[in-house]
């Protein structure tokens, strides 16, 4: 068994997903099955084979640094869940003390 229910719960916390117990019960065996299947990549003799992160081979691509019109503050904030004083209003990020 490559992955346990506790490990899935830990990964969900790292992923910032508040999984319910019922979902954990359902997801853990599925993930175990998937990870067992994808572990097949370990059969491949890949000693000395360089990794590919993407296929184009392009590196350090920049576009010309030209000023163009940008969103107004109103446009940028129009889809925000909460706004205050022309800013994104978010829940507190620090503890009380």
């Amino acid at each position, binding site marked *: 068994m490559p992955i346990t229910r506790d490990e899935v719960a830990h990964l969900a916390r790292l992923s910032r*997903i*508040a999984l319910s117990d019922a979902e954990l019960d359902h997801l853990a065996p599925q993930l175990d099955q998937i990870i067992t299947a994808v572990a097949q990549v370990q059969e491949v003799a890949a000693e000395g084979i360089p990794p590919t992160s993407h296929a184009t081979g392009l590196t350090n691509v920049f576009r*010309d640094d030209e000023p163009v019109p940008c969103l107004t503050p109103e446009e940028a904030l129009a889809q925000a869940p909460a706004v205050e004083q022309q800013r994104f209003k978010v829940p507190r990020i620090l503890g009380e003390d």
Partner: protein
Amino acid sequence: MELTRMTAAELSAALADGQVSATEVTQAHLDRIAAVDDRVHAFLHIAADSALAQAADVDKRRATGEQLAPLAGVPVAVKDVFTTFGMPTTCGSRILDGWHPPYDATITQRLKQAGAVILGKTNMDEFAMGSSTENSAFGPSHNPWDLDKVPGGSSGGSAAAVAAYEAPLAIGTDTGGSIRQPAAVCGIVGTKPTYGGSSRYGVVAFASSLDTPGPFGRTVLDAALLHEAISGHDPMDSTSIDAPVPPVVAAAREADVSGMRIGVVTELSGDGYQPGVLSRFAEAVEVLESLGAKVTEVSCPHFKYALPAYYLIAPSEASSNLARFDAMRYGLRVGDDGTRDAEEVMALTREVGFGAEVKRRIILGTYALSSGYYDAYYGKAQQVRTLIIRDFDAAFGQVDVLVSPATPTTAFGIGERADDPMAMYLADLCTIPSDLAGNAAISVPCGLAAEDGLPVGLQVMAPALADDRLYRVAAAAEAAFTDRWGQPLLASAKG
């Protein structure tokens, strides 16, 4: 003249000749959507007002004698993964329900500049993760050949819209097969262009090293017309290739395979493939041979590891990309009652806002990238990716294109694989290698499987930036098959 039955090429000619107006063409398609989409559910958003306004603008410009692009006045349906100013963009997810992006994707812009009329946004598996549209938060689309079957995915809404004559053209994205697999099971044409050949700017990211926008059409020429209209370098996408667009429309018109070297991939057949799919594929290979192509068998020994490598690479990239849905700047926010901190609100929002498959993939990707497992999973998958590219390089040293079935089976039933992730993943068995290698591939209809009467797709794969070869081969096969059948395949669909 039934406008919704015409191809994009026919509509383009009729519009240019003044036989029909863009407004009439658009209204005919909106009427068709109104008549059938409650059964097909191809669309998440129908943009009737803006479509008619766009059509009126095309008609006005044409009346002044302005030279317009080939697709001016031709309707197109757009997958709901592309940002569209003035229309919602949900990506099939609750977390983006009601989001109105403040900008257009490059492809949306190019469609508008070409005068193509955007009918609306099509249904998809949430964040393009899936092969059936059953992972859409807004309910599945239905296959026009049999409404109890899936239309494939993730671009299933786009494929269903074209197959049901709701639109002559549609745009999708292909990350592991999300254009070719739905095209195959809906009996239409779908292309994954060379990675970097079509812009990702404004495409909500799933797996950035794989995501590739591309066209759907009912004919090879139609797909080529849309391919050409959306392609080309975009400075807003750092992975966009600065090279001329391959001559896809000319190749579709030439439709000549005489002397071409075509390789049949040994590893993309055998166990797990439906007999009716394999026999239609074998017949397609014979047809290409009879048209003068030189057919050989080619082995790509690492292709059997493409599926496992993909299900490590794509979820890894997704786990990083989807971190942006944090409930702070846009989209859903849940549980912000003043007592909870930002992290708790984030976790509650993502719990409610994401569906099961998205959660599975985020967790899988987080696992594959975590310290201790990185080398054994993500690192190894990246090495397998290199080996798959080498298999392609060796194969394309011997042949001009490779062919295989586009999917191992025809359309499966709605609900049949919904809670069996590994069974669902197998739908992309044949399409994943080209995504990992970043080359070009197409699916073109090659008949109906004997056992269920459902469409089968022939996949053609070509080296990066040789997209024109796809259209040359697919158009030749299409012409030969249409002669044989006496009509296009789709004409035999019941609906």
